[in-house]
């Protein structure tokens, strides 16, 4: 019995030394940070946070977002001093979104990432965004029409998988992984403020292109869609394209159903070419006058789609290769994986090689369904 007692006491004693980095805390003494953003300032950095303020007790509890900002020379210093305006301990693990203003992103993301990756209480599954044409503070202070706060609005937008053809979401671990990897450059989804019924509403659309850790340019929504297809991101959502059927041109609305991309390097005479093969399965949502029961019509439409997508891909490649000179599609990684020897000879001067990198593009679009009707709806005279 005595031995058993000693054993139990020893176990309890050991427990005290192995409790790790948590401690007793009271939930009501914490201020929950649900979203944060970083703006640049002459003195250093401005950290803007959206916090959850609750009012009422019991069933009448209401949640209201409050935006606070602190200034400091570094982000860590700003985060630390947040407790002063908050009045209680800022609790970061529930932060869902992190916005970086255009100015800070152009200066370089190192300072921001250093803080996010080192802090124990920030999750690497936070969604990162870059703002365009506005500051992070302006975004966080805007009024989304339905959600309780901007952070909730942005994270629910990211969760809307069906509608996200206009952006490619990036969590902290994905973004930092791309920055740290060879042969690939990073992007971030863009948040803009748009006027909707008199209010400024944050909208996620497009992508910010990074070279190393600096923002160098933008992709619009349409380019981002193509970028998503080339990255192999499963696309959902609709797009409209003017299509000519039997000599008449009218818009048809298509829906992405399935997309597969294959990118392979081809070496001929020491030159590298990228072979891009994109397979798209599409549905027709609204066809107006096209009769898809006619095989010839379907073939014509598919050919036009093939051509249009090939053109768009070429335009995007020109933009990122020539203008931004940033390998956001990850051609370097493909080369490294498939042709390591060639990559080694190109790695040192990849930026130059990237500009000259030619691509063979092959697009295969197939219309696999046309909704509940195959032929256009006709009104009887």
């Amino acid at each position, binding site marked *: 019995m005595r031995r058993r007692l000693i054993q139990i006491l020893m176990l309890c004693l050991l*427990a005290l030394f192995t409790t790790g980095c948590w401690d*007793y*805390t009271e939930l*009501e003494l914490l201020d929950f940070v649900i979203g944060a953003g970083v703006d640049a300032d002459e003195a250093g950095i401005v950290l803007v946070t959206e916090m959850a303020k609750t009012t009422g*007790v*019991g069933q009448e509890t209401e949640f209201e977002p409050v935006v606070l900002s602190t200034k400091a020379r570094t982000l860590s210093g700003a985060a630390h001093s947040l407790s002063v305006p908050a009045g209680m301990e800022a609790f970061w*693990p529930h932060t869902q979104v992190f916005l970086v203003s255009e100015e800070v992103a152009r200066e370089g993301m190192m300072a921001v990432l250093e803080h996010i990756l080192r802090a124990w209480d920030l999750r690497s599954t936070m969604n990162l965004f870059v703002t365009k044409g506005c500051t992070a503070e302006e975004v966080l202070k805007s009024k989304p029409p339905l959600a309780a706060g901007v952070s909730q609005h942005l994270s629910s937008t990211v969760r809307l998988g069906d509608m996200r053809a206009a952006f490619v979401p990036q969590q902290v671990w994905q973004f930092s992984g791309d920055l740290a990897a060879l042969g690939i450059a990073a992007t971030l989804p863009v948040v803009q403020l748009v006027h909707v019924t008199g209010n400024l509403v944050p909208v996620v659309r497009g992508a910010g292109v990074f070279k190393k850790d600096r923002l160098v340019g933008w992709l619009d929504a349409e380019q981002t869609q193509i970028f998503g297809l080339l990255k192999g991101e499963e696309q959902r959502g609709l797009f409209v394209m003017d299509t000519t059927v039997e000599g008449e041109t009218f818009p048809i609305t298509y829906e992405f159903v399935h997309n597969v991309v294959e990118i392979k390097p081809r070496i001929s005479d020491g030159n590298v070419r990228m072979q891009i093969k994109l397979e798209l399965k599409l549905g027709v949502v609204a066809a107006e006058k096209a009769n898809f029961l006619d095989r010839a019509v379907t073939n014509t439409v598919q050919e036009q789609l093939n051509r249009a997508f090939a053109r768009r891909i070429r335009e995007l490649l020109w933009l990122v290769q020539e203008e931004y000179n940033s390998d956001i599609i990850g051609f370097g990684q493909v080369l490294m994986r498939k042709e390591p020897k060639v990559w080694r000879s190109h790695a040192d001067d990849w930026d130059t090689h990237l500009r000259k990198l030619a691509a063979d593009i092959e697009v295969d679009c197939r219309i696999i369904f046309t909704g509940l009707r195959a032929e256009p709806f006709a009104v009887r005279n």
Partner: protein
Amino acid sequence: MSFWKRWKEKKAAGKQREHLSTSLESNIRWLRSNLLADDATIVYRLLRTKGPRPRDCALVYANNMAKHDFLSEHVVAPLMSSAPPKELHGQGLLDYFMQEAISSDSMDTSSSYKELAEAVVRGTGVVLVDGCGIGLMVDAQGFEKRSVSEPQSETVVRGPRQGFTEDLGVNVSLVRRKITSPNLKMKYLYVGEQTRTKTAVMYLESVAKPDLVDEVIQRIEQIEMDGILESGYIEELIKDSPRSPFPTIGHTERPDTVAGKILEGRVAVLVDGTPFALTMPYLLVEAFQANEDYYRHWVLASFHRLVRYISFFLTTSTPGLYLALVSHHPQLLPMNLAISIAAARKNVPFPAMVEVVIMGLVFEILREGGVRLPRSVGQAISIVGAIVLGDAAVGASLVSAPMIIVVGLTGVAGFVVSQFNDVAVVVRLGLVVLAGLLGFYGFLLGGMGLMLHLASIKSFGVPYLSSLTSLSVQGSQDTLLRSPWWKMQMRPRHIGAKNRQRVQSPSRSRRS
């Protein structure tokens, strides 16, 4: 009476007398002044027979313990109207009364004062005859007893409505009616220096291990106690791991449950004066088995058994988990829940741990109050408790609303596994303290300690977790789930080892 005779009697009375004398007067005097002294309930009815040589007799019995009508009709009247032949005396006279006068099917004789006195206080009528050194014991026990009714603590929707009563004879017969086999063996033991409580050990000879039966009998015989008023006394005195809160001996009020356990090879102990029978060995799985499981469809029974396991986890762990999450790891809570709990706790003056302990205590107070008070008052207690707990305390910000949910869930889940109701309180408290001090680490530490403890205890030589830890299909058929009867061909391995075959193979082949 001559001086010589009186002197002899006086001399005999001075010694410790063990056996009856031939003098009726002396015997009655001895009983009145020694073994049955100062007992107003003892009746001494003097009689005289008819015939050529009338004999003096006495009927001694305890008032309200023996049946008056029976004794008057079958003992007093026949004795008074009998006419024993003149030449009969001693054993012959007694035989005459037994065979020709007294009409009772249960009679015995003894010459020991002690035995006769014990028989009297148990409700037997003792007939003493002048000139005869032997007393006649006529079984006439007849006191008020409760009729067989459905047990309050173990009600069923489907199943027999019979429950044990306080009368051992009735209880034994209830079990016997379930198992009408000569294999069902029974041994009576008398326990308690003063109470001499009659205790029956029942088992199925062809199935129960002889070692087990001997061990049970030996442990009961070794009990040294002045009185046994309930089977709980015996349970506590003979159980394994007496310091553990986990029961290693089962108790039930239902004859069908006892019969089921006996059929598996267990030993049942029935104690006079209580409707609670004991069964042993008792394993952890038995707490989660209900007799109704075996009366209804096995799929439903299995589902409800799983619900019982989940409920036990909930009743022991909910406060601990809540405390660990709220006080140590709020980052593990979904954001909306964390904010909602924080809002609910905003005006509560106590730390979460104090809140958990206070609410746990309040719940136990209400439960104990509800159980001990008469049923009508008990209901009032629960209403007051529900209002005080559910509404006023939250309204006054003394406790937070999530805490009420935690306590409510803990309480309701606790009633699902009634056999472990008391154990759950101890385990819960331990986990609350550990989780409150060390968070999830403490909770897991407590859980591991609990598992180690359970793995280390045994019940009558059978590991407490056996069956539950069995890797064989046969061994785990009646544990987390209940297999259909036509699949359960074997008895539990450690218990019915003497004869494991439960179902004969022909029915198995027919089914499969």
